[in-house]
């Protein structure tokens, strides 16, 4: 269960709307099912009481939506940010993607978000309703009564390896501030690094061949906010929706991983939304790990205005040859 209640969020938003600080509220509402909670913009208190959702399924990172919403909205938008979301928020500001003046950011503590696949593994398919209280109670159309589970047993991978409960940006914080955590998020990357090149190739071949090029990963990615994405641009030479062959799929992921290298905050949205459960975060984490090792620890989005190692030059930077040598067989 989350520490701050939905009612507290609504109350906060309603009072900021009422006193004119903000004119709209970016939060979450229910989608098709109880577990697909989606971003939503509210302008009135009624509306929020009716639809606003804050529970263990609010994984969606709202910062990216500010890019489009701030351009349209008159006045300020209130946005609720979990700790991991605040990193994306800062990164977008570093890239001048929205106007900070147009946003009122409220940090909210997060106890981790549930992974629907893990939930289903316990409850079975055909979910009819979900209730998030002390426990998560799931009833399905096939069973009498509800399956009960602990949030901690069904956490998203990204929440299991949460890098920070600390909010790095906000105008106001609800609840208690957390800390930066020692996340072990590179363990899985190390396992991949230990493979032989052939094994690793087979691993990615297997994973990426599942891709159906729905573009969900790109669309949700807070680093992918380009006005015209190369994959939509007929002049780019890599534009396509459906890939011609499995090589093209891989190129999509490799190009995207390079585009977000140094800008990816490791928010984990790509893996969360992938309908094919491809562990896309591993690709980005490998980049992050390499950059940390080659150029010193760097966390994208930690502050606004940071110079990412790949677009910065310092005298201690490794020479290309050294990078190659370090890579060796593991490259």
């Amino acid at each position, binding site marked *: 269960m989350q520490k701050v209640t939905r009612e507290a969020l609504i109350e906060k938003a309603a009072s900021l709307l009422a006193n004119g600080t903000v004119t709209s509220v970016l939060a979450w509402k229910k989608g098709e099912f109880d577990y697909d909670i989606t971003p939503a913009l509210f302008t009135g208190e009624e509306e929020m009481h009716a639809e606003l959702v804050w529970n263990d399924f609010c994984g969606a990172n709202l910062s990216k939506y500010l890019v489009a919403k701030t351009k349209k909205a008159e006045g300020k938008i209130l946005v609720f940010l979990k700790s991991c979301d605040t990193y994306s928020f800062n990164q977008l500001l570093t890239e*001048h993607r929205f106007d900070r003046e147009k946003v009122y950011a409220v940090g909210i503590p997060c106890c981790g978000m549930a992974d629907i696949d893990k939930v289903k593994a316990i409850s079975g398919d055909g979910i009819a309703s979900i209730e998030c209280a002390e426990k998560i109670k799931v009833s399905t159309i096939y069973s009498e009564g509800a399956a009960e589970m602990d949030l901690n047993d069904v956490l998203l991978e990204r929440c299991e390896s949460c890098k920070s409960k600390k909010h790095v940006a906000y105008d106001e914080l609800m609840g208690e501030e957390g800390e930066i955590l020692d996340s072990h998020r590179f363990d899985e990357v190390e396992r991949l690094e230990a493979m032989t090149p052939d094994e690793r190739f087979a691993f990615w071949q297997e994973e990426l061949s599942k891709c159906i090029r729905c573009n969900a990963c790109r669309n949700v990615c807070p680093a992918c906010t380009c006005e015209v994405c190369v994959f939509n641009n007929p002049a780019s030479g890599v534009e396509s929706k459906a890939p011609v062959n499995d090589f093209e799929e891989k190129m999509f992921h490799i190009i995207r991983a390079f585009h977000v290298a140094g800008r990816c905050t490791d928010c984990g949205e790509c893996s969360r939304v992938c309908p094919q459960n491809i562990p896309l975060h591993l690709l980005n984490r490998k980049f992050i790990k390499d950059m940390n090792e080659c150029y010193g620890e760097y966390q994208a989005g930690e502050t606004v205005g940071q110079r990412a190692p790949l677009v910065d030059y310092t005298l201690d930077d490794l020479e290309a040859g050294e990078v190659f040598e370090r890579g060796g067989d593991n490259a």
Partner: protein
Amino acid sequence: MQRIGVFVCWCGSNIAGTVDVKQVAKALENEPGVVYSTDYQYMCSQAGQDMIVNAVKEHRLTGIVVCSCSPRMHEQTFRKTAAKAGLNPYMVEIANIREQCSWVHKDMIVGTEKAIILGKAAVAKVNLNAPLTPGESPVTKRALVIGGGIAGIQTALDIADAGFEVDIVEKKPTIGGKMAQLDKTFPTLDCAACILTPKMVDVAQHEKIRVFSFSEVSEVSGFVGNFEVTIKKKARYVKEDICTGCGACVDKCPVKKVPNEFNLGMDNRKAIYIPFAQAVPKVATIDPNACNMLKAGKCGVCSKVCTAGAIDYTQKDELVTEKYGAIVVATGFEPISMEKFDEYAYSQSKDVITSLEFERLTNAAGPTQGKLLRPSDLKHPEKIVFVQCVGSRCASCAEKGKEYCSKICCMYTAKHAMLTRDKYPDTDVTVFYIDVRTPGKNFDEFYRRATEDYGVKYIKGMVGKIVPEGDKLHVQGSDLIANEQVHIDADLVVLAAAIEPDKSARPLATMLTASMDTNDFFTEAHPKLRPVESPTAGVFLSGACQGPKDIPETVSQAGAAAAKVIGLLAKDKLLGNPCVASSDENMCNGCSSCANVCPYGAITYEDKEFRMPDRTIQVRRIAKVNPAVCQGCGCCTVTCPSGAMDLRGFTNSQIMAEVDAICK
């Protein structure tokens, strides 16, 4: 569709020896767009060029591929040829089948195969070439020289003599630099002041030269031909245009014990001072940290005695903005601090001094009126030890010294030793050295005179420790040739301190977007072929700010920098390089990635209104490249995530087409 002509050059046997040129011409004939393909012995010759001109007419060519030597060699030649034939010069591509092919291959089959591939890539590129026209920008016919040492002085005089206006910005109250502090100068031993001060006077009197003394550059914007520079004139509390330099104020000022920086703190000056008698401008300056009036509002003596009424205790720093076509950096050097060299007891004993302090001690205008007296007790030193390479050539002591050779120390130490023996034959002079380096006209002769004619003792080896003992300095060193320890009880020790660039050089380089090396010396555009230009267009280098130099070298480089500046200012308009970057505003995110990597600061941002499909107006931040500043390096294009940034003449699609042609 282009109509491309391919011209394969034999370069005598340079290419034809390892590449079957006929086969290359034949193979390229069938490439898309190619309508004519031929080979010839020397394409760059008049006959070869005529061949191109005729072919353009005859076959109505729109693009040209020359398979020949490096574009560095003849790209310009063939671009001119194309222009002669009525084509846009940028419709020419060179396939380098000499340096990158025939010269590196031995086997005819391999060489030919590679030449064909390189030719195909060039054809693929020309298919996507578009005519390019260089932009023009006007040139402001005025130069700025930053630093008024001998380097800056000489550069300014040479530029002004050619008829252009020059401003010198000097941070100290007077121009002159280090040379003004020297006594006599190697290798000819003329007195520094006698050869420097006339030049300083020339500067003061030149109608084309303005001196901003006691001033610093605080902001630089713009680009070659069109720099805009803000100069901060620091408050000196004396009206420069009224002060006659009579010195009455200095005589009467009651604050007498301010360490005199011109004599390196070895004597004192007043709170109001003129650094030395020949200062330019000869204007007094008040030291606000010492002046009673400025500190406590009490005194005002100088203002009372100044008959000209030049004193102004309310003066404030003043900002002046001026436009320049060229900027010359001449910020010189400083000896490094000796504080960290505990082994030489510099901080412990007044009688351990640096060579520059030694210059002041022997200078007739110095603290001892030129009599060599040791600072502690003003006694004549009987035994003097000079230590060379203090902090120079010192790879292991990076935290206090420098890896490089300071270049001037061998010679000035020989000078000091020789002059001492000449004037005071009773003194015993020993020099410790690692090597004596004397490459330079009359340099080795000079050094040999010191040892052979003047009896200076040279010991190869370093000094390990200097310990003050009573009124002596116990010097422990090693003699590497005799292979023994040497102990000398000296009266005076002179350390030839390494030199380093002025501390203000790095922030200045950032302002100018000029590059520096790891030691903070300014980098030249090419170490051999463009030694006085910085890689940033319009910024030139003069003197020791670029690397350790003696006066003859400084002056020749100063003249060379002036020649480059004159060459630039003589032009009315500058033709730009059309191969510059530009960003597609419909695709640009305004993310600043490109500006972060642009080494030349060519990219700025503006907010632009866009009409959206739903008829709303959106304001977006977009990148703008200043074509006059952009050097076409391409860093931005590879950084841009969305591909909005592209480089004309080397577009992403052209490069991909080349890669495709090679990989096919």
